[in-house]
């Protein structure tokens, strides 16, 4: 119940974020600019530009919208860690590492999607609607299992 409650609360808070703030600040500074830098670093010929919630180039135009930003998986991991019986210190560590992990995984997903839409556009739907969501959720579950195993091992050490 705590897990579901946390998830619903986080989801509610997410919807309270204005579109302007999401597009012009969070997506632009937190996602799009970093993905553009990543792509330009590894493939300088792409010459990708970041604008609001868009990744532009001569080959593709990728829009990041609410719901396609990895927030769903992030909320699942955060809620699971909060609901799991562990010490505050373990939870804090789990949250920081988990948020970082999902954030990096999501940057990788968006960067990957950019290359898919640029070079194999017919694969875009498969990657976007099936491969990426299932793998992201399962990566989130694996991270949670890793953290939960570690925290219970430390808690259950006999005195």
């Amino acid at each position, binding site marked *: 119940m705590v897990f579901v409650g946390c998830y619903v609360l986080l989801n509610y808070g997410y919807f309270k974020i204005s579109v302007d703030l999401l597009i012009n600040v969070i997506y632009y500074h937190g996602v799009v600019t970093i993905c553009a830098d990543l792509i330009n670093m590894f493939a300088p010929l792409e010459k990708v530009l970041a604008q609001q919630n868009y990744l532009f180039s001569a080959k593709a135009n990728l829009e990041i919208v609410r719901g396609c930003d990895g*927030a769903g998986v992030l909320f699942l991991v955060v809620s699971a860690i909060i609901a799991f019986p562990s010490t505050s210190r373990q939870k804090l560590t789990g949250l920081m590492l988990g948020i970082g992990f999902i954030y990096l995984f999501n940057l990788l997903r968006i960067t990957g999607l950019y290359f898919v839409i640029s070079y194999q556009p017919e694969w875009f739907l498969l990657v976007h*609607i099936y491969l990426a969501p299932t793998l992201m*959720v399962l990566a989130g*579950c*694996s991270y949670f299992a890793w953290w939960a195993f570690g925290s219970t091992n430390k808690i259950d050490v006999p005195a």
Partner: protein
Amino acid sequence: MYQRELISLTLKGLLAWLTLSGLIWYFGECLGKALFPLLTAGIMTLSSEISPSLNLVKSISRFDDGIELSAWVLRPIYLNADQFILPGTELKSAIHLLHALVPVVIEGVILLVWPVQRWSQRCLLVVLGVLTAILVVLAIVPAQLLGKLEISFQEIPGAGQNPRPVPWFVDWLVFCEMGGRWLLAIMAACLCIKLQRRLLWD
């Protein structure tokens, strides 16, 4: 020690994911069609203004296969005080089949890698998983198809007086699309694990 177990669990998870993805790839169409009667019943429960009919729209690549709702309007659907959709009009909305089956795969992978001691426990988990996966799909797909229709209606009423109220399943659709569908899949897997422990506890 637990590092080795976790690596083994992760590898099992990847294997389960590949297996289920293969099954969805080859049998997704049959699975989708088999669920049509239940999905149609779900749509009829949610809305009495239309007569629904579902069909599978196939694409060349198979990535774009979709479930299409053809809805015959049974009585006038008022969009606002001045505008309404005439009875007999056919309305359509569609969703991607693969996207609809994502929660099933997530739930399936969790249940296939969950550590158990006996095969009977695994079998029970799989049986419970199939039953709850149907419920998860039923909780998502009818609302998604109807919600998409409703969203197209909602773009018109804003302009007129007495706009059509937004039905609850549009909010549910948005919740599911923002990741709620994954929550449902994980909750369904947790429910199966609890039931299995209660029924076959060592």
